[in-house]
Every structure is written in structure tokens, then in C-alpha cells.
């Protein structure tokens, strides 16, 4: 059975009609074509489907789409307002080869953005704990950690403008 869902995704209000069984990850990928949100396990383990829901990272395979009515959702597509400009975390992942096969990358990047919002200067240990909900099957964690350290450096150096320059309206931690 279908149900109307009003939700703000990447800063844009959406009015959708969604089957009550639909997972948030499926609504984002199939109804809104936001295919950065990957499906790994559908059991809340891998973190490939991580999105930001009302300011907090969640695993969108374990949220019913109808349950986010009235909420704000941000995916990688909404991390930067300008399509030609990347978020500093994205830039750092490219520069430090934090991507490897790329499957876990969108979730990793959002987990990293969330971590750096609450802890702008994390230790290596804090970074590893901060991304413990995201699995990299290439086991490329070393470069992912280096990428997040690099992003933290850039965002600290860049602080006066970091909030307004690249980040979508109010919905993205970072």
C-alpha cells in the first residue's frame, strides 16, 4: 500500500508516493535516482547506505522510507552546492587514494564529515572508531584514515569560510 511522504532531500522538498515496505535506501536510489547511496548488506552492518537524517548519520537500509516524512535527508549528491566544487573530505579522498573500488566511499565520506563536525582534530584512533560503522571490503582503511586526517587539516586551515562556501543549506554536518 502506498503512502504520501513529504521529505526534504539535499535541500529540495520532495512529495513522493511510496510503498510502506520501501526502505529509505530504495526510495533514494529508485525514486530520486540518488545512486551514490549503495546497498551492501541490508542488515545494518556495512554502512554503504549511510546518509544524513536530520543531522545524524544513519544506515538507510534500516529505516523505512515512510518513517522519514517531515525529515531532512542528505546524500553525497547534496554535500556540495556547486557541481564543480567538491567537499574538502571528497578532495582529500581523491588526493590520498582513499577510494580504491569506490563502493564504500559515499558512506565513508559522510561518516567522515559527521566525525569532523563533532571532532575537528581527531586522532588516528578516533578516526578509526568514527568509521567503524563503515566496512571497506578492499580493506583500504589505511588510505581512508590518511584521507580523513588530510581533510581535517584542510578544514581547520580553511575554517573561516568552511561553513558557507561549499555546504548545502543547513542540512549537512560539516
Amino acid at each position, binding site marked *: *500500500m502506498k*503512502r504520501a511522504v513529504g521529505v526534504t532531500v539535499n535541500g529540495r522538498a520532495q512529495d513522493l508516493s511510496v510503498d*510502506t*515496505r520501501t*526502505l529509505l535506501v*530504495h526510495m533514494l536510489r529508485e525514486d530520486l535516482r540518488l545512486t551514490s547511496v549503495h546497498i551492501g548488506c*541490508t*542488515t*545494518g552492518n556495512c*554502512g554503504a547506505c*549511510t546518509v544524513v*537524517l536530520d543531522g*545524524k*548519520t*544513519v*544506515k538507510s*537500509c*534500516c*529505516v*523505512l522510507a*515512510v*518513517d522519514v*516524512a*517531515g525529515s531532512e535527508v542528505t546524500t553525497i549528491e547534496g554535500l556540495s552546492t556547486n557541481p564543480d566544487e567538491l567537499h574538502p573530505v571528497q578532495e582529500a579522498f581523491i588526493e590520498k587514494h582513499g577510494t580504491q573500488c569506490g563502493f564504500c566511499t559515499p558512506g565513508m565520506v559522510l*561518516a567522515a564529515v*559527521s*566525525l569532523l563536525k563533532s571532532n575537528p582534530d581527531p586522532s588516528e584512533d578516533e578516526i578509526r*572508531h*568514527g568509521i*567503524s*560503522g*563503515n566496512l571497506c571490503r578492499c580493506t583500504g582503511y589505511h588510505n581512508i584514515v590518511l584521507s580523513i586526517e588530510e581533510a581535517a587539516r584542510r578544514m581547520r586551515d580553511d575554517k573561516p569560510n568552511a561553513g558557507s562556501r561549499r555546504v548545502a543549506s543547513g542540512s549537512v554536518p560539516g
Partner: protein
Amino acid sequence: MISQELEYLAPVQLSEALAALDRYGDKAKLLAGGMSLMPMMNLALVEPEVIISLNHLAGLDQIQEDGAVYRLGAMVRHHQLAESEAIRRHFPLLADAAAGIGDVQVRHRGTLGGSIAHADPAADYLTVMVALGARFKVESAGGKRTIEAGDFFLDIMTTKLEASELLVEVEIPKLPAGARSAYLRLATVEGSFPLANAAAVQGGGSTRIAVGGVTPKPFLVSTTSANSPDGGLPDDVPQAVAAACRDIAGPDADYRRALAQVCVQRVVARLM
């Protein structure tokens, strides 16, 4: 992917949620954080006809001091408990337990009440609640009652909650002045369910140690004996743990018994 058709209800008032639960009973599942229920539905291990979401209910996400007790709403999320100054100060073992559940994303979504009502035998909160002597406030369309944490858990994923009842609030008595507390989990990987866990509270002349994960429900060992001169456990504690673990069955029974003893030793060492 969920194959079974679902009716979805999102009550805003508690009375609406209780009326829906009264109407649908066993056909319905309450959806809190969904960190256990959603994977189980995705794997078709549970196929409810009706989902009653608690995520739009007003007022169940509060942490409040009330005289000699703290009142925690059932929809308080793990990260709230882990980050709360008041919880860190009054019940550091609860903050520690919350901070070790799952991972960042799981702690953002998962709830205190959901974990308690789901009653996975290894869940971190169960032992903490038993050690703290928490009381669970439960409501149905027909009325309300209070259930002691020590009486609430009956078996694996089985509690005293009736199909029409909703866990609304957790009430925790403040610890006596100078009390010490600790929580410890033994897990194969960070963030996985612990194999065994223990929570200890020492104060007012006694030590209460709850152990979970090794038996179908947590068990409590209390002692008024002093620690041994070297700071170790009083003799009656390992004996009581062994007695509580006597009926553990299965190929790993000896391992589980050993885990329980190790957990108790280490959690008591953390009190020092």
C-alpha cells in the same frame, strides 16, 4: 527488501499508539530505532502485518532528573545516553554501555526502550538495568504498571511485556553517595554484540554484579562481603556465578562459564 505488505501507522500521541497496539496486538510490531527489527524484516525473519512507528511520538526522548530518580524516555537514543553529562555523572556505566553499542550510525538511531524490549540476551543495557535496579514503566490502553528490571526478562528475546503493552519509560534510582560503578563487554569485534558482559554497582555496603550474554537472561549476584585483602573478589562471588551458570548447555558451555567468571573479575577490577 520487505516482501510482505505492511500497514504503517505513525502516532503522534502515546494514547494513539496504545490504541493501535490494543487493536492489532500480535499482528503489529512497534518500530523504535529499528536496529534489530529492520534487519529482521529485511531477512524475513519477522513479518508483521502492521508497523506502529514510535519515531513521531512526542515526549519519549527525554532524560530527566526527578528527585531521587532519573527518568529516561523509551525513545532516548544510544548517542544521547553516551553524550549526556548527567548520565556520565550519575550512571557512568550506562554511558559506557551506550557508547559501545554497534557503531556511530547505530547509536544515532537505536533506542534504550527498543533494546530493552527486544531483550537480546547479550544486549548491553540488560545487565546495566539489572545492576542499577531500574524500573520499567509500561502502559497499555487498559492501564499502566511498573516492572522491576530483575523481573522483566524471562528468556531469550522474551519479556513480561504483553502484546498490548508499550515500554514508555525507564526509571533509575540515583546511586548512594560515593558509589562506584563499571560496565564491561567482551566481544569478538568492536561493535558486535558482546559474547558476555557485566555491570557492577558498589555502594551502600553491597556490591551488585549483573552478568549477561551467557545465559538466556541476565543474572544478578549480590554480596555484602568485603573484597579479599589483595583487592580481589570476595569468595562468595565466583561461587554464585558458577551456580548461576550451572545449566548452561551446548558445545561451548565451558567457554561461556569461563567468560562469565572473567567478566565478573574484570568488571569488579574496574570498580577499584
